């Protein structure tokens, strides 16, 4: 797979752009703030992280399901004058796609430095799981073929894919539960995580059944939060405070044939990653064997597993073995979602997993390790929980990470970054 890793090539704009700043709000259930206030909080944190003034940002992009505040409002609040903005419709897997589009906007000469943000009250306003006011909206059009059947929330929508994977390959509930177990271990060492409690396989499979095959603990946490990152060209990226995370490749919202929620095109236990891998690894010039740390979108335990499998981190059908083997645990061969991800840290439609990998690549992930006089963490690489003398979640000697963004079984995006 690793052919063509010429980091100086113009091809696909490989290695020409970087993420220079990341920031987020607290992950809460009940923010008590508007998405406008949350958005400015996260963007300001990303600006402070990079050490970039408002005058040096001139692009802004966001995505939402009409549950956010548009870029010009936040730019105005923060004194950012925009030469380019675009607020698009979209949820999971939009973040990687927008990073690619930000690169395109800069490359086209439309602007120079772009903030990408997602701001959402996913618990207190528009509940991501579909409960509350959203559960009683009128049903028409395409929803007559889905919502009318009580086939409505993300978990309900995806369940035929998850179930068929178990049927096709013998994947067990206990194997898949390991995704949550491992992410909870990572979250226990993340001061920001909403759920810091470590759980066991028994905890997962004995938790309340939501929609077979999903128990409560197979599902992510709904939270209120905003997240932001800043993209610019490599020739500017080193002017700022942190080591940039350089972008090797991106693939955005790649679809299976016949993108619909009725699964006309099989095998339905195959997801968009099957198609994304042919784009992302070509663009980045690396293969799965080169990736040292993944951020596989975990709206559900199953979404991490299905993607890791279809991107080629294991053979097709062996995702259950992969996620339960310990490979993706901190200290394992290829840790996944070292922040705890959507299952534990908070639900952001994918942004927090990119933010985490940026910090990982800097070697400056925020954990419970002590800091030196300059605020730099002295990592112990002891991944036990803090009460057991651990508390670290930094991956040592990290060079290359990959994010695997999920929208639904048929759509996804990806981003590969390297240490700058």
């Amino acid at each position: 797979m690793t052919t063509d890793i010429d980091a100086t090539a113009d091809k696909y704009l490989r290695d020409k752009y970087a993420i220079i700043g990341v920031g987020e709000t607290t992950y809460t259930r009940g923010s008590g703030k508007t998405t406008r206030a949350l958005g400015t909080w996260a963007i300001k944190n990303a600006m402070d992280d990079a050490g970039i003034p408002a005058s040096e940002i001139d692009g802004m992009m966001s995505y939402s399901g009409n549950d956010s505040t548009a870029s010009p409002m936040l730019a105005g609040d923060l004194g950012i004058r925009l030469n380019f903005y675009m607020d698009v419709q979209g949820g999971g897997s939009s973040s990687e796609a927008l990073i690619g589009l930000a690169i395109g906007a800069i490359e086209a000469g439309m602007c120079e430095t772009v903030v990408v943000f997602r701001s959402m009250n996913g618990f207190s306003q528009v509940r991501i799981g579909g409960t509350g006011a959203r559960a009683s909206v009128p049903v028409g059009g395409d929803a007559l073929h889905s919502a009318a059947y009580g086939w409505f929330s993300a978990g309900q929508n995806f369940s035929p894919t998850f179930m068929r994977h178990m049927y096709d390959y013998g994947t067990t509930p206990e194997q898949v539960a390991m995704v949550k177990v491992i992410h909870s271990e990572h979250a226990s060492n993340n001061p920001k995580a909403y759920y810091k409690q470590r759980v066991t396989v028994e905890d997962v499979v004995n938790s309340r059944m939501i929609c077979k095959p999903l128990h409560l603990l197979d599902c992510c946490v709904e939270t209120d939060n905003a997240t932001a990152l800043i993209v610019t060209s490599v020739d500017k990226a080193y002017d700022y405070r942190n080591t940039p995370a350089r972008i090797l490749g991106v693939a955005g919202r790649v679809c299976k044939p016949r993108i619909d929620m009725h699964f006309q095109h099989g095998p339905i236990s195959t997801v968009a990653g099957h198609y994304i891998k042919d784009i992302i690894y070509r663009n980045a010039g690396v293969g799965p064997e080169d990736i040292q740390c993944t951020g596989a979108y975990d709206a559900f335990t199953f979404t991490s597993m299905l993607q890791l499998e279809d991107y080629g981190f294991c053979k097709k059908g062996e995702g259950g073995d992969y996620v339960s083997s310990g490979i993706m645990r901190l200290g394992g061969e290829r840790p996944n979602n070292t922040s705890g991800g959507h299952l534990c840290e908070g639900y952001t439609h994918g942004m927090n997993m990119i933010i985490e990998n940026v910090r990982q690549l800097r070697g400056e992930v925020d954990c419970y390790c002590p800091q030196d006089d300059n605020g730099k963490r002295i990592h112990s690489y002891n991944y036990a929980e803090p009460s057991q003398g651990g508390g670290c979640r930094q991956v040592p000697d990290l060079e290359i990470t990959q994010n695997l963004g999920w929208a639904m079984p048929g759509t996804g995006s990806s981003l590969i970054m390297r240490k700058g």
Partner: protein
Amino acid sequence: MPQGEYLGMTLTVLDLDNENLAYFQHCADHDFHLQRCVDPECDLLRYPPGTACPWCSSREMVWVPVEARGTVHSYGEVHHAIQPAFRERAPYMILLVELDTQSGVPTEHEALRVAGNLVDADGNFAGPDLVKQVGIGSRMRMVFADVAEGLALPHWTLDEEAEQPESPWRYPQEVNGV
């Protein structure tokens, strides 16, 4: 404009939504129809209703009767309902039934997979005893739930005339007796 109350939801087919108007009118007649591409080189059926042929992009089509029988390809089984009226019906099944017609056509893994809930032969939501009997491989036939003039929803019930698998594949963990 076909519109009616169904399980606490207002279901509406808009007057300009010609594809869904025709689809649900046939369902209201209890006579399942799908769109067939009229390009003689193509001739494929499609589901759900759409505005062009996914295989040849032709916009021309006709509605044709289709035998509404098939095999459960996959399912979800909802124990924690979200929409209010579904709560008293939980656990309920969302079935993805692969029609016998056009199965594995035009490529091996393509098929007409039609959604619906598991109901009894009279169209009532299935109780736990029936839910327990249905899984991947079960043979199903379509029944209709009338909603309003010009609007009925297709559902699935066990096909009494078909040979059923000895034990259809079900999720390994039993919860609340199913």
